[in-house]
């Protein structure tokens, strides 16, 4: 018997699991995919916005701004890279420039730090900026964050505090007694529970329907991205974006916490939830938009293109108790600020669960509050110390991202360990660099067999069945 089953192992579900894990509640986190962080939480810009582009008076604006100040402290506890470098929303036309004062007022009324600066001042802040920049809004409190490490960090700390994490466990049924959920069937297991949190992202509608709850409509809003070399991202000082419109925030140039550069996203509503294909026309559009902001970005620096689907929904951004089912809480329709508002969403979900009588009001005295940081070779200030900690730090497996055998070993030692090559990439960045595995995938594959005991034919790239090699070559 569980107190709470959290459905969805993206950033929101993992944050909720983390928040509940320090209380006396017994919690299970279930995820349909083979690993946590497989949806929008791994395919996003990695901007932790301070809320400058949120609509004043909305729950989203409130939860984003409430989350913003705490990132440094939280990320230190979750061993997650975060840097508060600020965003420039850059106007290159008279029309865009004319919209800045209104956006400035909007940001200020959300309580978000924002400065209106002229083009010259903007270029002093970010010398890579186009000379066409006429003016910009500077949001100094915006940060860049490793959203994968954040999601996995939440889940890891939750698991260390006793939260049961079930992967490859799609929810197929939810049992009710009147207006109360009594059990969740996930991955063929029946889990009896006092309450359910629906944090299923794109599948919010499915889960609510299975529970007999409110009707949601969700659909994928696809974004396409370019990833550029670390050498390029390392030259950026600021996140650079355009002037948001009513429809979209537009394309950003975002230096990542490991110095790569992300360009994107686009925003196109689709029907097919499993479609993550990129196309040439859209990628061209992203690049052209990025070059209008920073003319220096060049295609020969591209190391990867990818697409991700964020959960668009009607209603949007609903963190509330279900109107019909008394022990169901939704953290749903969180389309593009899932990362940026996750700490406050988790706290609000806790409040809502307390209101319905769950034992989430008492903190456990023995709860672990921080993960032990794992030393990583890339940019380490005292690399001389590392080999004494573990000789495997001397064995650099992925030279592009400078990931060592010690870091890869640690990915398999986690409470929520890597179970695929993609799982290793998400935990360590190995194979994620400029050669995209051309020189290290074989080594990573070998280590995978070493740490998991699986045979070479069964090395999973991602989902089970999607193996690296094919069996039967000898047969």
């Amino acid at each position: 018997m569980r107190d709470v089953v959290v459905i969805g192992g993206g950033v929101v579900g993992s944050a909720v699991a983390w928040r509940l894990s320090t209380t006396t509640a017994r919690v299970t986190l279930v995820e349909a995919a083979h690993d946590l962080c497989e949806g929008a939480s791994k395919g996003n810009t990695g901007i932790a916005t301070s809320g400058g582009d949120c609509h004043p008076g909305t729950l989203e604006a409130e939860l984003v701004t409430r989350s913003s100040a705490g990132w440094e402290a939280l990320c230190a506890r979750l061993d997650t890279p975060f840097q508060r470098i600020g965003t420039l929303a850059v106007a290159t036309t008279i029309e865009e420039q004319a919209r800045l004062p209104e956006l400035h007022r909007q940001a200020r009324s959300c309580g978000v730090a924002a400065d209106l600066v002229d083009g010259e001042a903007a270029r002093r802040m970010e010398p890579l900026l186009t000379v066409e920049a006429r003016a910009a809004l500077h949001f100094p409190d915006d940060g860049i964050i490793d959203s994968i490490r954040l999601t996995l960090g939440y889940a890891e700390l939750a698991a260390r505090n006793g939260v049961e994490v079930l992967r490859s466990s799609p929810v197929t049924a939810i049992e009710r007694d009147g207006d109360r959920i009594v059990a969740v069937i996930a991955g063929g297991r029946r889990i009896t529970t006092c309450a359910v949190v629906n944090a299923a992202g794109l599948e919010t509608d499915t889960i609510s329907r299975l529970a007999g709850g409110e009707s949601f409509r969700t659909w994928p809003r696809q974004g396409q991205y370019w990833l550029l070399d670390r050498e390029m991202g390392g030259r950026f000082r600021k996140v650079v974006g355009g002037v948001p419109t009513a429809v979209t925030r537009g394309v950003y140039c975002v230096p990542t916490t490991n110095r790569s550069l992300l360009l994107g996203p686009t925003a196109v509503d689709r029907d097919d939830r499993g479609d993550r294909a990129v196309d040439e026309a859209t990628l061209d559009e992203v690049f052209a938009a990025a070059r209008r902001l920073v003319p220096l970005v060049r295609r020969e620096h591209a190391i990867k293109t990818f697409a991700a689907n964020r959960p668009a929904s009607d209603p949007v951004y609903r963190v509330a108790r279900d109107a019909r089912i008394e022990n169901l809480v939704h953290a749903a329709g969180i389309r593009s600020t899932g990362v940026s508002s996750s700490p406050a969403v988790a706290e609000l979900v806790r409040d809502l669960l307390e209101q319905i009588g769950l034992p989430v009001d008492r903190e456990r005295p023995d709860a672990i509050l921080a993960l032990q940081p794992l030393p990583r070779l890339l940019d380490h200030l005292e690399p001389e110390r590392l080999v004494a900690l573990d000789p495997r730090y001397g064995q650099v497996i992925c030279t592009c991202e400078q990931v060592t055998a010690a870091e890869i070993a640690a990915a398999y030692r986690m409470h929520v360990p890597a179970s695929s090559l993609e799982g290793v990439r998400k935990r360590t960045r190995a194979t994620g660099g400029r050669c995209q595995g051309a020189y290290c995938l074989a080594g990573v594959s070998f280590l995978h067999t070493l740490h998991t005991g699986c045979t070479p034919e069964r090395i999973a790239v991602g989902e089970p069945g999607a193996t690296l090699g094919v069996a039967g070559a000898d047969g």
Partner: protein
Amino acid sequence: MAERRSVAIVGAGITGLSCAAALRHDAAVTVVDRIPVAGGVHGWKPAETRELVAVCGATLALGETALRWDGRELLVIGQHGAWRQPADALVIASGARPLGRPELGVVGSRPAGVVAATVACHLAENGLAVGLNPVIMGGGDWAMAASRRLLAAGARAITLVSPGPLLRPAPDDRRVAVREGERVAEVIGRGRICAVQLASGTRIECDALVLAHGLVPLRNVDGAVWDGHRTVYAQPTGDPATVHIAKAAGSAAAAAVRSLLDLEDGR
């Protein structure tokens, strides 16, 4: 006479060793390679490699990975720890790799079964085929190596899609079909790849796509990836690669290092 100069070379392939040999009277040379043997893609057994190792007069730091360069010092890590090699110049001779998906303009989905030729060859040598019906994109060294090795590992039908004319003869084997002057435009499949679409519109069913077209320099030393201070790049990308080309690149790099050091001496 000025104090003896020191040069660090990253990459103990034919290029790096040739550069070291050419500099042996001018500088104290340290050659670093992440692989614990010399020879790079040419291998350590051929006579060229062994002769160069014998005559180059350099300190070989093999099984050690170069990490960062700040213009004065190369940070290296290996199983005995991290160390810093002071150097007046750095030579990057770390070879080349086949082009990746964005470099080739291949769009579509990102399923399992799309791998670089380097990986496909390594796995095939160990008896693991990345596909039984693979499409191999390329027409040079890596494409032919991948074709041969995948056939040996049990592949049943290979389609070689070569954007240009074949640079090397394709294996004479009824299991290999060649499409010259065509390009893979799109990957199709979820979970695992099931087909590719060529730029011409032709769809080819397959269970793997091996990327083996073109070569770009492989550079992984932070601070020396694009325009490192006091850095000379010696990374021929000709396909097919030859010992002659590698040796010439090594000599040219040595000349560039010499002029870099001479210019400073005369300052």
